[in-house]
């Protein structure tokens, strides 16, 4: 469980709650547009030591089938994972737009 993207819609008068409490973890926008570089994981090298997972400020790295995997919708491309990876299994590559 983590906050996840909801269907995009305009907030109407009736959608605005009576008070300032609302469903937790309700996301309407992604952060992928922030990136100029993207981390790319070489799964042949990854030993799932989970350093990148632990140090990611955005929590976008998870371990899937024993390998690190990145949620590119929310990765901002800070590069901490590439720097922390001792075996250099993560490379930062320029985003092509």
């Amino acid at each position, binding site marked *: 469980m983590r906050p996840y993207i909801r269907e995009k819609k305009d907030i109407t008068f009736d959608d605005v709650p009576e008070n300032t409490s609302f469903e937790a*973890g309700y996301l309407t926008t992604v952060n992928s547009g922030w990136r100029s570089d993207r981390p790319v994981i070489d799964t042949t090298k990854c030993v799932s030591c989970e*350093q990148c*997972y*632990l140090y*990611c400020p955005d929590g976008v790295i998870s371990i899937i089938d024993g390998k690190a995997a990145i949620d590119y919708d929310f990765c901002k491309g800070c590069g901490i994972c590439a*720097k922390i990876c001792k075996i250099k299994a993560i490379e930062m590559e320029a985003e092509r737009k």
Partner: protein
Amino acid sequence: MANKVAESISREEFFYGHKACAGCGGSLAVRAALKVLGPNVVSVLPAGCMSAVGFNFPQLCFSNNSIISTFAGTASMLTGVEAGLRARGFKDFTAVGFAGDGGTADIGIQALSGAIDRNDNIIYICYDNEAYMNTGIQKSGLTPFGAKTTTTPAGSNIHGNIRPKKNMFEIAAAHDIPYAATASVGYIYDFIQKVQKASKIHGTKYIHVIAPCPTGWGVAPDATVDIAKEVVDCGLWYLAEYENGSFKLNHKPKEFTDVSAYLKKQGRFKHLTDEDIQIITASRDKKWEFIEKNFEL
């Protein structure tokens, strides 16, 4: 290869999709602590970076119960949340606050002192990025000596901030708090263990974690963890605990790395003269003399 620390905390993400700057140390501290404390945590965050980036209706980035407090009111709202839930019969929950350095050492210190005095059963985590970053890098009571901020400019007359950091860790300890600790996001295992420990202690717990702000410190976004490690390695910060009336040092660098190298990597310290750096080094040495005399090593 199993990572024991990773295994010891929740696989869920509780702080996700937020709009913090890339490489934000504060968001790393919040994320890690929430993964330790699990789904029954209620987080209270004052006006500041982490609330500004996480609570913009309808983009709401905490999957656990979370609430923004007034800037001065982190600790007092935590008190109310904890008392309210207890009064309603809840037992299995943790109330945790995440306030920045300004929210803790300046505007929030009175409420924090009150909460510690009452020994309210809360965890208070100060993510210290050493200035008011949300408003654009102004000096706080935890801005270190020499740092350039937008209210402590570095010119030929004055070289940035003229005062050292307040020692919030020892201020908390002086209340004889059940548990206080210092940490750094550069040593995330140590931080995680301290949050785990705090969650098992009854009463007020205070954890002060250094959380670099790449934007405010003038370092690259990917340097956050390295610089947070280096501040410990060069001795300008230390990893320690206060418990049962005594101080304990958790990590003693065999040899300090170069203070000058740490400072010169950062835009906020670029202007410092050799003399300034000597003052900083001398104050570090004085602090370590105190630590060696008064802390269990």
